[in-house]
Every structure is written in structure tokens, then in C-alpha cells.
């Protein structure tokens, strides 16, 4: 039952993410605000730091719900998928930093005209501004920061219960938590 629900989640996640992303992009492209109001002082805001920390702890707690998964050790599959994931991640990060660098190079404090190319950082801050202007708290921003933090806590600070046949590590025995 637990494994079935987990597999169903994996099946539903890609189309859900794709539909959500395309919908949001089209909605902003057609009806969204064209800029943000610089007279407001929505940022900096420490609320998001609290959301980050809550998400980190929440992601760790989430890992308590499932034992370490059983995996079939097929070396070829492991290697190909691992290399593909790593290469893709580095390629995407390179692209992001390249765009950020170009955007940063195109703006200037002395420039009084509206920019024609800007770094990604501005778009994200501007999106937070528009979000807060629309609903006060910035619920979309809070949800996104929370989601990223939960993922970080779940992946990088996981604390799964061991499999039934899995011996405890010395650190786990020392803590006596498993």
C-alpha cells in the first residue's frame, strides 16, 4: 500500500509540474503585471528565513515516514542515471549563471533608463513584490520557499528509519534513535 502510493506519486508528479509551470507562465505572460512598484518596501523580510527553517525541519521529519527504500543494485543503470543527472544539473547551473552574468553586466546604477536585460535575481525579487502587493503576505512566495526548503531538508538532512534487515550504523546506535 505504502509503495503503491509512493509509485502513484512518482507517476503524477511530472505531468502536475508541467501543467502548473506552463499555466503560470502563460498566465503571467498574458495578464501579469509588467513591472513592480519600487516605492514599496516589501524586502528585506525575515519572514522568509523563518519559512526556510520550518521547511528544513519539516523535510527532515517527512523522511521519518518511510524506511530506507530497497534498491536493486544494477551497476549499469546506476552509472548511466547518475552521470546523466550530474551532467544535466551542471549544464543547467552553467546556463543560469551565464544568464545572470549577462543580466548583471547590462545594468548600471548610473543608468536612468528602464533596463532591457536584467539578472534573474531582479525577476525573483520583483515577483515577490508583486505577490505581496496582490495578497499582503505573499503566499505564492511563501509556498515556493517552503517547498524548496522541505526538499533540501528531505534530501540533504534525511533521517529515514532503517530497513528491517538493515544494521544500524555506529552513529545511529550511539544516538539510540532507531
Amino acid at each position, binding site marked *: 500500500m505504502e509503495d503503491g502510493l509512493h509509485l502513484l506519486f512518482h507517476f503524477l508528479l511530472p505531468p502536475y509540474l508541467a501543467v502548473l509551470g506552463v499555466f503560470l507562465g502563460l498566465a503571467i505572460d498574458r495578464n501579469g503585471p509588467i513591472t513592480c512598484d519600487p516605492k514599496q518596501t516589501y524586502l528585506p523580510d525575515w519572514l522568509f528565513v523563518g519559512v526556510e527553517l520550518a521547511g528544513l525541519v519539516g523535510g527532515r521529519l517527512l523522511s521519518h515516514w518511510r524506511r530506507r527504500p530497497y534498491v536493486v543494485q544494477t551497476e549499469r543503470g546506476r552509472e548511466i542515471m547518475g552521470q*546523466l543527472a550530474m551532467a544535466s544539473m551542471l549544464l543547467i547551473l552553467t546556463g*543560469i549563471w551565464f544568464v545572470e552574468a549577462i543580466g548583471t553586466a547590462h545594468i548600471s546604477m548610473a543608468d536612468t533608463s528602464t533596463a532591457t536585460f536584467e539578472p534573474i535575481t531582479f525577476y525573483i525579487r520583483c*515577483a515577490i513584490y508583486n505577490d505581496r502587493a496582490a495578497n499582503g503576505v505573499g503566499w505564492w512566495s511563501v509556498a515556493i520557499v517552503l517547498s524548496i526548503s522541505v526538499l533540501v531538508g528531505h534530501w540533504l538532512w534525511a533521517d529515514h528509519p532503517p530497513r528491517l534487515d538493515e544494521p544500524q550504523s555506529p552513529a545511529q546506535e550511539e544516538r539510540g534513535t532507531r
Partner: protein
Amino acid sequence: MTNDISVTSGTYTTGVVYVIWAITFALVFISVLELICELKGWPTISHRVEDWSDKNPWFSRGLITVLFVFLAHFFLNPLQKP
């Protein structure tokens, strides 16, 4: 020195749409890889990352710190050009 015009984004709509679609593509790609791994019985991406962080707790804590500083720089700075 900044003024109202210079802190107003001129390419917001197009830029943020590209950001959303780039993030969507990355997330869909990762989730498809996860699904393939689950179906094949291979260790998933998340399992690999969890394994790595379990074996390298200090690197993992360091990476968490870097990621959170990166996130925080978005919302602990005012909206203005540097």
C-alpha cells in the same frame, strides 16, 4: 545613486516567464528521472543524494548553508540595482 526609474524592471514579464519555464523544465526532468529509477528498481536521485549526505554529514551541512544563503540573498536585500 538610484531613482524610481532605475529600480523599475523593464523586462519583468518576459524574464519571469522564462525563469518559471526553466525551473519547470528542470523539475519535470528530475521527476521523470526519479520515475524511471523507481520503475527500473535503480537507486533514485533522491536516494543517491540522501546516501551521499548520510555518508558526508559535514559536506551536507555546508551545502545546506550555501543553499540557504543563496535563497536568503533574494529576500534579505531590497529591490534595487546594485
